[in-house]
C-alpha cells in the first residue's frame, strides 16, 4: 500500500503578527500538523507572486500567507495589497488549473495563537483532501557539463548559425537597438568571444541575456549570420550551468509555463468565450489562443490592458466570415519564452503536446493572433518536427484571405476619422516576413489615414523585451522612443499584432516617463481588436487610454 499523501505547506508569516502568533502557539504547546513550514518575511505584502509560484513549482502543495489583521497592518497597507495580489493570483490559478484553494491568505494578530494553530491545521486538511499536484516535480540531477563539451557545443552553434562567416564589419552593432544605448553591448563581440573559444564565463555572461533577439542584426548582416539563433543557442548552453534570465515579474511567467510543460492540470482557459460566439471542438480551422487570458490575470493592475479582447475579436471576426473555429481548453503555452531562455526540454514537451492536440482536432489550418505563437509554430515547431500536417496562419494573413475571398464583408464598416500607424513586431516582421497583409488590412479603415513610421517593415524598432527576459532601463528608452516615433507621424493610434509589444509599450508610457507626456500621447491598440471595432463586433473603449 502506498503511503497516504501528506502535503507540504509553505506558510509565509509577517514579522509582526504571523510569525509571533506561531511562536506563541509554540510557547503554549498548541499542537498542529508538522506539514507546515514557516518562512518569515517582513510583511505579508512583500510576498512576491513569483516566489509563491516558485514554491509550487518546487514542491509546495499549498501556500498560506499570514499577516496582521486587516486595517491593522504594521506597514499600513501591506496586507490589503497582499490580499488584492493573491486574489488576482487565484484567478491565474483557476486558468492554469491549479486549484486556487491551495493558496490562501489569513489575517491573524500576534496574540491569536489558537487561531494560528487551527487555521494552519484546517489548511493542511484541506490541501490533503485536494491531493498531490499532478506535476513532475522531482529534481533531476544534471551531469556537470565539461569545458570540452561546451566548447564543442558552441563550435557546432557557430557552424549552424553561419557565425563563422562574420567579417567584423560592425553593421549589426550600428542597428542594434540595445547597442544604441549601451556602449558596452555589441552582437559582434559576443560572437567573437565564442569563436575564440572563450566560454569560461558563459554562466555569468549577461550580454547573451541582454539581446532582444529582434533580428535587426540578422537583417543587416551582409553575410547572413543568424545572430539571433546564435544567441538562443548560447542561452541554452548557459542554462546548462544553471544560468537563467533575469525575468520580469520575478520569474512568475516562466514558472507558469514550466508548470504547464511538466504538469497535467485541468485548465480553464476558455473563460473569456461568450455564449453568442460560435466555436467548435473539431473542424478545419483551429484558433490557437495562447496565453492571453493568463496575462490579463498577471497584469490585473495595468490600466486599460485587456488582452482577452484580442481573442474575442478574432472569434467574432471569424464568425462574421462564417468560420466556426476550434478552441481547445487543453491547449498549452507554445513555449516561445522557454525556447528563448534556454529551456529546451520543457519547450519540447509543450510542442509535442500542442501538435498532438491540433492533430486530434482534425484541423488543417491553425490561426494565431499572437506573433510569438505564430513564429514558434511556423519556424521552431516545423524545424524540429518537420511537416506539421497543418498550416499555421497568422490572423493578418487570414483576415486578408477572408476579405479577398469575399467571406468577410466590409460593407458595414464604420467610417473612421483618425490617423494611425502600424508597428511591425519583430516576430511577425523580420522573423516571419509578414509585412504586406497588415498594410493591406489598413485599407479597410475607410476614412482613416494610414501613416508609416520612419522605421518600418524590416527596419522597425522592436519593443525591446523578448521572452520577458531583458527588461531594463535601456529597454524603456527604446520603448519610449518607439512610441514617440509613432506620435511624430501625426497618428492618433498605433496598431500592432503582437500582444507582448502592447504590454511592453503600454508599460513604458503608462507610468512615469522622462519626456513630456504629450510626446507619447497615442492610443496603443491591437490590430485584430481594431478590426473588430471597425466592424462593430466589439464596443469602442469607453475611455481613451494610452
Amino acid at each position, binding site marked *: 500500500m502506498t503511503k497516504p499523501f501528506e502535503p*507540504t505547506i509553505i506558510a509565509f508569516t509577517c514579522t509582526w503578527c504571523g510569525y509571533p502568533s506561531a*511562536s506563541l502557539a509554540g510557547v503554549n504547546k498548541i*499542537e498542529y500538523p508538522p506539514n507546515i513550514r514557516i518562512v518569515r518575511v*517582513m510583511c505579508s505584502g512583500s510576498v512576491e507572486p513569483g*516566489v509563491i509560484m516558485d514554491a509550487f513549482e518546487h514542491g509546495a502543495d499549498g501556500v498560506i500567507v499570514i499577516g496582521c489583521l486587516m486595517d491593522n497592518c504594521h*506597514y499600513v497597507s501591506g496586507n490589503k495589497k497582499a490580499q488584492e495580489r493573491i486574489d488576482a493570483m487565484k484567478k491565474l490559478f483557476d486558468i492554469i488549473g491549479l486549484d486556487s484553494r491551495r493558496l490562501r491568505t489569513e489575517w491573524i494578530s500576534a496574540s491569536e495563537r489558537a487561531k494560528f494553530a487551527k487555521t494552519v491545521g484546517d489548511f493542511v486538511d484541506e490541501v490533503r483532501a485536494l491531493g498531490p499536484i499532478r506535476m513532475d516535480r522531482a529534481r533531476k540531477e544534471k551531469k556537470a557539463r565539461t569545458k570540452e563539451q561546451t566548447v564543442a557545443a558552441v563550435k557546432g552553434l557557430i557552424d549552424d548559425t553561419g557565425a563563422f562567416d562574420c567579417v567584423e564589419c560592425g553593421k549589426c552593432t550600428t542597428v542594434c537597438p540595445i547597442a544604441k544605448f549601451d556602449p558596452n553591448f555589441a552582437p559582434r563581440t559576443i560572437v567573437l568571444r565564442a569563436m575564440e573559444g572563450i566560454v569560461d564565463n558563459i554562466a555569468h555572461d549577461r550580454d547573451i541575456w541582454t539581446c532582444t533577439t529582434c533580428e535587426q542584426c540578422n537583417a543587416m548582416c551582409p553575410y547572413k549570420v543568424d545572430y539571433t539563433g546564435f544567441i538562443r543557442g548560447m542561452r541554452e548552453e548557459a542554462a546548462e550551468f544553471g544560468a537563467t534570465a533575469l525575468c*520580469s515579474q520575478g520569474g512568475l511567467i516562466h514558472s507558469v509555463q514550466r508548470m504547464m510543460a511538466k504538469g497535467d492540470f485541468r485548465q480553464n482557459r476558455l473563460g473569456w468565450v461568450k455564449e453568442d460566439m460560435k466555436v467548435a471542438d473539431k473542424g478545419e480551422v483551429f484558433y490557437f489562443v495562447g496565453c492571453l487570458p493568463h496575462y490579463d490575470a498577471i497584469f490585473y493592475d495595468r490600466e486599460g490592458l485587456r488582452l482577452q479582447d484580442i481573442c474575442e475579436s478574432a472569434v467574432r471576426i471569424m464568425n462574421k466570415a462564417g468560420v466556426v473555429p476550434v478552441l481547445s481548453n487543453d491547449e498549452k503555452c507554445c513555449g516561445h519564452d522557454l525556447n528563448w531562455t534556454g529551456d529546451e526540454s520543457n519547450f519540447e514537451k509543450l510542442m509535442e503536446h500542442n501538435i498532438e492536440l491540433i492533430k486530434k482536432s482534425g484541423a488543417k489550418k491553425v490561426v494565431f493572433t499572437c506573433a510569438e505563437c505564430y513564429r514558434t509554430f511556423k519556424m521552431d515547431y516545423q524545424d524540429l518536427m518537420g511537416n506539421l500536417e497543418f498550416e499555421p496562419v497568422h490572423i493578418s494573413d487570414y483576415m486578408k484571405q477572408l476579405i479577398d475571398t469575399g467571406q468577410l464583408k466590409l460593407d458595414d464598416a464604420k467610417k473612421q476619422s483618425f490617423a494611425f500607424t502600424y508597428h511591425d513586431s519583430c516576430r511577425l516582421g523580420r522573423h516571419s516576413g509578414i509585412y504586406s497583409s497588415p498594410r493591406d488590412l489598413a485599407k479597410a479603415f475607410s476614412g482613416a489615414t494610414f501613416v508609416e513610421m520612419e522605421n518600418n517593415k524590416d527596419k522597425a524598432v522592436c519593443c525591446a523585451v523578448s521572452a520577458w527576459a531583458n*527588461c531594463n532601463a535601456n529597454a524603456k528608452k527604446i520603448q519610449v522612443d518607439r512610441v514617440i516615433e509613432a506620435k511624430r507621424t501625426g497618428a492618433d493610434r498605433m496598431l500592432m499584432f503582437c500582444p507582448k509589444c502592447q504590454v511592453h509599450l503600454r508599460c513604458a508610457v503608462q507610468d512615469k516617463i522622462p519626456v513630456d507626456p504629450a510626446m507619447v500621447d497615442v492610443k496603443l491598440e491591437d490590430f485584430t481588436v481594431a478590426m473588430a471595432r471597425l466592424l462593430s463586433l466589439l464596443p469602442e473603449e469607453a475611455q481613451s487610454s494610452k
Partner: protein
Amino acid sequence: MAEQPGEKKQERKALAVFLCTCRDEIGRKLDLESIAAELRNDPRVVAVGVHEALCSREGQEYLKKEAKEKGFERVAIGACSPNVQGLIVTRALEEQGLNKYLVEQVNIREQCAWVHSDKKKATAKAKSLVKGAIARAEKLLPLEDIEIPIKNSALIIGGGVTGMQAALDIAAAGHKAYLVERTDELGGRAYKLSMTFPTHNCGICCMQYCKECVFTPKIEDVLQTKNIEILLNSEVEEITGGFGSRHVKVKTPKGAKEFDVGTIIVATGSKTFDPKRIAELRYELDDVITTQELEQLLVAQREKGGGLKRPSDGKVPKTVDFVQCVGSRDKVKGNLHCSLVCCTYAIGQAREIKRMNPDANVYVHYIDLRGPYRGFEEFYQAAKEEGINFVRGRVSEVVPDKGRMFVRALDTDADVLLNIESDLVVLAVGQEPADGSDAIAKMLHIQTDIDRFMKDINPMFPSEFRRGIYVAGTAQGPKGVRYSIEDAKAAAASAIDLMNKGKIKFPRIVAFVDEARCRGCGRCEKACEYDAITIVKDESKGVLTCKIDEIRCEGCGQCAVACCNKAITVNGFRPEQVEAMIRALAEEVMAHD
C-alpha cells in the same frame, strides 16, 4: 535566480551549522544528533555543533571558539526564535568578527519541538528547516548597519498630563522640547477633574499636601521651564523625514511654524464616549449627565458650598443612579474594550455624593467592577460600608414621565426588575481615541488597534524599532492619570537615551535598487507608505531612476513586489534568498515521501 549585474561575485566561504538543545527543551523532542550526523556529510558545511544553550554565556563562548578555530563565514542556526534570543547569539558571532547579515536562524523550538508530538516527524521537519536555513545562508550578502544621526530636540503632541510630564523630563535632560497643544490651555482632561481616585485627594490645587497627587504643580512647572516651547491653539499639520530627523510643520495662531526634531512623543490622549449614541439612556434630559459633567458640578459645589445640586432645578438629588460601562464593553452601540478607569472614578464620585448628603440613595449599576489599582478593593469595601448600593445588571432604559425620571434595570443577582425613581442619572462614559488621532497615526505610520487606539511597539523589541516615535498615555488606550504619567516618563527616558547618544546603528534590512534594471516607472514610489522612494531624472542618461532613502525605508518590501522588473529587492529578503530556502524545505520533504 542569477546574480544581479554589477554585484560582486561572492566567493562562497565556509558555512557552519549550530543546533541548540535548549537544555533538553528541544533535545528531548527532536533527534538533533541524527540531523547533525547527516549534515556532517554535507559538502557545504565545515562545522556542525550541538550545544545545550547557545544563548547562555557558555554557549556564546563556544560559538566564538568555534568561529575562531574553524574560520567559517556563514552560519545557519536551528534553535528558538531569532527575534529574541537570536539577537544574543548573533551578537556573540559578531564579536568574533562575523558579519551578522550572514547568519540565518530557524526556530526549531516553537515551530517543531513544542508543537509536534511525533518525534520522527518533528525531527524530519526540523531537518528541513535547518537545510532551508543553510540554503538561505549561502545566498545572503554581507552588509553593514546604517548609522542614523539623531537630532537633539523632541516634539510632544498633546499638552495633557502625559505630554507635560514627557516635556519636563526631556527638558530636564537638556534637550529642547516642543509641546504642541490644540486647545488654549495645558492640562488636558485631567485638569478638569475635581479629585483623583482611589486616593480621594484633591486634583487641581496645591493648597494642601497630597502625597499621591502627582499632577498638581505641573502646569506652572511646564510654563517656567526654558527648554520647553509651548505652542497653544496649535496643530501638527505635517511631519516629513525619517528616523532621527523629522521636519515638523505646526499651524499656530501666529502662522505656520517649522522645526526639526529627533524624537516624537505622541500624547494625543483620548476623549470620552458621546452618550447620545445610546438613545435609551436619554442624555438629552437635564438630569442625565456624564461623569465629566458631574466633576464640574463637584468643582462648583466646592467653590460655592452647599452640597451638590442637580442641573434642572438646583435641588439636592435624593436618589442618584450611576450607569457603568456607557459605551464600553458594548460591541453594538459603543466599543468592545473596557475603559479601565470608570469603575474607580464612579465609586469615588458616589462616595463624594454620599459624603455630602448621607441620606441620599446612591446606586451603582455595573456588570463587573474592575479596578486594577492599588487600594481599589479597600476603596470599594469602604463604599459599600458607607451604604452605596451596588446593583449588578445593566441599565436598560431611562424613562421620563411627567417631570419624573425612572431608571429601569435588572438586578441580576436578585433577579428582580428595578424601576427606580431617580433624581440624577450619571453616565460613566468610557474612553475613545481623541479626535484627529487617526491623522497623527497616519502621518507617523503608527499602527492602530482595532479600537483605533495607537499601538506602541512591543517593549520586548529593541527600543530603536520605534524609530524615535513613542506613544504614551491614553493615546495607547484607556488609562488612569498616574499610569499615563509613568508612561510619559518611560517614553521620555527612551527618547532622552536616543538623543544623548546622538546617533544609532540600525539594521540595513531596507530596499536596495539595481539602477541598471530600474525603468523609473514609479510603481515603487506609489507603493511606498513612507515616502522613502523618489523618482529622479538622470539628466546625463536621459532616464528616470528610483532613489531610496535608507533611513526612511522600513524594509517592508511593498516596493519590491510592485517592481515588475525586480530592480528593487529588500536586503536579506531577496527573491533568490527566499526561494533558495523554500526549495530546500520542499526538496527535503519530497526526499522523504
